[in-house]
Structure formats: C-alpha cells, structure tokens
C-alpha cells in the first residue's frame, strides 16, 4: 500500500528526565499519515514516557511534538481532539457498563448523545460484546476490558491512535483480536503509533519500527530492514573437549563476530544452519568432541548490542 508522506507526528529533540534518570534523550522522528509505526524496546527503554509526552500527559523538559501540525504543548486540547489513546496502565471504569464507558468517552469529544447511543451499539457489535453491553465492566475478562478500552478510545474516529503495549498480559486469542482491530483501523485510514517489547508483534504489524533503548533511538527502519540486523545477531555457542584455535573456524567466513564466554565460544552468524554443518565437519576433521553446541536465535538484546555498536 502506498503511504502518504505527510507527517502526522513530528518529534524533534524530545527529552525528559526524572531526577538523574534521562528517560528520553533528545529523540527525533516522524510518523507518516496512514502508517503503523511501532516503538520497540525493552522495559525501561522510555516507550511509555515518549507516548505520554506525545499525548500531552506529561510535559517534556525540551523538544517539540507536533500532532497533525498542532503543537501539543501550546494547544493540548486541540491536539487531543485528534487522537485516541490507550495507555499502558489505563483502565476503563469498572463500575460502569461497557456501553456507559464508550458513551462517557464520546461525550468528552462533544458527540451528541443520540448519535452516541448508536455509535456505542455499533462498536459493541463490532467487538462481539453486544450481549454484555449493559453489564458492569468489573465482570469482564482482561481481554474484554481491553476491547472496551479500545472501543472507548476510537468512538470519536480519531485520525491517530496511540497504543502503549496493547497486547501485554493478554491471552493469545485476545492478542490476535487486538492485532486484527489495529490492522482494520489502519486500513480505514487511521494512523497507528504503538509500543511493544515483542519483536514478532512489531514484525507482523508495523510498516516501520523505531528501536528505542536507554531513551535513545537506535534505529528506525522497516521490519525487513531491521531483520537483516537481527539476522546477524544469531549465534552458535560451542565448546569442545580440548582448546581449539577458533580462528580456523573463522576461515569458513560464516562467522561475523566471535565472543568468548568462559570455556565456550559464541560465534555470531547470519546463517546458523550452514555454520552448524560446517562445525560438524570441522569436529570430525580435527577429531574433536562437542561438549556444548547450541543455536541461539536473534534476540532483541543482541540486536541492541549490534545496533549500538554500529553507531
């Protein structure tokens, strides 16, 4: 799909400190209209802090955020009218019913009550919650609550939707349903900004992914582009019964980088299969006995190491 190049989110040199901790450190990026943009990073990377600044919840120490051209610091209400937000810890009111929650949200955006009734019914039907419309949300499962949460955040048909770790802590079915909803919303023209610590989720959902670590952006690319980086971080861990001159293995040109871990070696490769087969032959030829031999997939951790080294 062709994505328009107009930027709906523009972030310049955004920074936030909590005491001595720099949670977000001079980050700049743009999100294009109609794309699904993912912010990927481990816990404590600064994802939530970033999303809170983008949605006007906390004031940055410095830097600018433009939401569809509107400066969120100068004009927070106007900017907030354009967006829907599903915060990481954000719950809906459990004392209210599903429908009451959606209607309450809609009223904040000035939608007429009569219209809201219909919209709430339509949303509940869409999420398959019509039968539970008038039950208090406290009787709902976590996945159902998250659905009502999303329904409440999109009742005013925002152009831009923020979701902070929308699938964290949900069961597989609920996760899939949430992902489907995100894709559908996007296909109907909504720009999505989401955060996740799950590589696979970013991979299957996002048009572009920004990797954040320690409050800094390590890379922004398409999932395919990033995958190339991840692939190079696959590794094979080996140790033999006697010490071996590892540089001989490097002659295979399958090893990108090597690392000594105690009596083991970790050999980074973009083709673990080939390397393992080569190693088997190598052991045979040199009369070696494997005491360890393990393929380690690309982990986010490793990708970060890689990405920070490259810079």
């Amino acid at each position, binding site marked *: 799909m062709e994505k328009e190049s107009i930027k709906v989110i523009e972030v310049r040199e955004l920074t936030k400190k909590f005491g001595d901790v720099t949670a977000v450190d001079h980050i700049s990026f743009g999100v294009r209209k109609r794309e699904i943009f993912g912010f990927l990073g481990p816990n404590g990377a600064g994802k939530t802090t970033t999303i809170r600044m983008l*949605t*006007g*919840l*906390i004031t940055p120490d410095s830097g600018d955020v433009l939401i569809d051209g509107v400066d969120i610091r100068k004009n*927070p*209400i*106007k900017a*907030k*009218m354009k967006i829907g*937000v599903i*915060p990481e*810890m*954000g*719950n*809906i*009111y*459990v*004392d*209210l019913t599903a429908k*009451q929650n959606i209607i*309450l*949200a809609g*009223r*904040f*955006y*000035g939608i007429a009550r009569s219209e809201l009734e219909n919209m709430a019914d339509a949303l509940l039907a869409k999420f398959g919650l019509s039968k539970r419309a008038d039950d208090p949300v406290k009787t709902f499962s976590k996945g159902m609550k998250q659905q009502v*949460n999303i329904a409440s*955040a999109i009742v005013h048909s925002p152009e831009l939707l923020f979701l902070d770790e929308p699938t964290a802590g949900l069961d597989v079915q609920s996760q899939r349903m949430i992902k489907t909803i995100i894709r559908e919303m996007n296909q109907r023209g909504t720009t999505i900004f989401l955060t996740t610590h799950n590589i696979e989720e970013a991979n299957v959902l996002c048009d572009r992914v920004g990797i954040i670590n320690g409050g800094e952006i390590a890379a922004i690319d398409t999932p395919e582009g990033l995958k190339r980086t991840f692939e190079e971080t696959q590794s094979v861990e080996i140790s033999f019964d006697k010490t071996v001159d590892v540089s001989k293995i490097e002659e295979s040109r399958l090893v990108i980088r090597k690392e000594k871990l105690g009596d083991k070696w970790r050999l980074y490769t973009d083709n673990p299969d080939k390397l393992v087969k080569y190693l088997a032959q190598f052991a045979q030829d040199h009369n070696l006995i494997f005491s360890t031999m393990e393929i380690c997939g690309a982990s986010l951790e490793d990708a970060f190491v890689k990405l920070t080294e490259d810079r």
Partner: protein
Amino acid sequence: MIMPLGNFNRQFFRGIAVVTEKNIRIYYTKPPVIIFGFLFPLFMFLAFYLGKEVDFYIFFPGLLAMFLFFIASSVGPLITPWEKQAGTYERLLSFPVSTNTIILGDSAAGMIFGIMINVVVLAVGLITLNYSLNILVLCLGMLLGAFCFSALGVLLASPSVPNPSYVMMFSSIIRFPLIFISGIFIPLEDLHGFGRMLSYFSPITYLVDIFNFSLRGQSNIALIVDFVALIIFSLIFVYLANRSHKRNLMRGL
C-alpha cells in the same frame, strides 16, 4: 477571563460537565463518601448537642454550615486517589481535558452532593424552627460555600499516592481544626481575642455568618466581607489544587 464562547471554552465547560457526571455516577455511592460526608457530621452533631440544653434557634445556622462543609469536602479527596488506584486517571487525562477541567469537575461533584443533602437539613430546620428567611442570601451563600469547601476537598486529594484511606486520614487532619476554630460550636459573638482572630482563618466562619444573617437576621461580619472572603478562599483552593495536582500528576500512575 470570560471570552466569547469559542471552541476552547465550549470544550472546557463540556469537559467539566462530563467529569462531574462521571463523578456523580461512580463516586456518590462509595461507602467512604457516605461515612465521612454524612455520618461524621451527624455523629458530631449528636456528640455535641444531644442531652444538652441548647437553643437550636441559635445553633442551627452553624450546624447547617458544618453539614455543608463535611459533605461538600468529602468527595474531592477521594476521587483522584481512587482513579489512580483503579488506573483510570491516565485514561481520563488522555481525553481533551486539562487539570483545571478535572479539578472543577471534581469540585462540582462535591458541591452538588453537599447542596443536595444540605437542602434536606435546611428543610428540617425551617419546619421545626421559626426563621424569617432571606432566601437569596441563603442560596448564594450555600452555593459559594459548597464550591469553596469542595475545592478544599479537591486540594486535599492532591498529595495523592493511590491510597484513598491515607488521603482520608490526611484530609481529616486538616478538616477538623477548620471546624473547631470556626464559629460553629461557640457563636461568633461569644468569641473574643485570640479565638476570634483564629476563627477568621476558617472559611466556615464566613458561611456561618451568612447563614446567621439569612436565617436570624443577625451577623457579626459585614455580609460583603463574608462573600469576598469565601471567594478568595475558593480561588486560593482552586489555584493550589491546580499546582499541586500538576506536581503530583505522575505519582502513583
């Protein structure tokens, strides 16, 4: 401050109305609101007056003010801590609202609750006691007093760690002295010197005086001073609540 009702203002007042409605729906029926707001002043009333020879004709205006104070200020301290504990606060902030919208919506909820119950107490007083009523002054006083006290309640919510019972205790520590230094248990005309001076630091004093004026036609402070004092107290409470809510925004999120 009041501009033509542009988009911004419409959004502002709508936000206050929606927050108020939400509060009424969810928080009026919470047990602590009923206990601290309604039963507390009732027990205090019983403890102080029951079995004593008191002239209710003289004490009723003070009682009325005490009820309004307790009830109007009982809702505010609980809402934000509750919302933080339940995780709904961040959600609420993501709507097109500002801190002031939330503060005024929370105040309005306390105000309405206070007035509702106060009208019942007033009715009992009017039926059993023989007052010649100045209804305009009484209504204005009740409105302004209710707003002032509920804004105090919202201010007391702001150091909110997400722990309603802690906030309730803290708010009682502030609220009780304000009752005792006001002219409720000792009529203002009997207060002299230091006691009298101290009473001017409690907003309740001014409302008692307004109620005294509008029910018994007798007051110790100029009416205009009463109203101005209540307005100044209200503005201070709203201003401090705004600052303190902003400062504590992230606490307990």
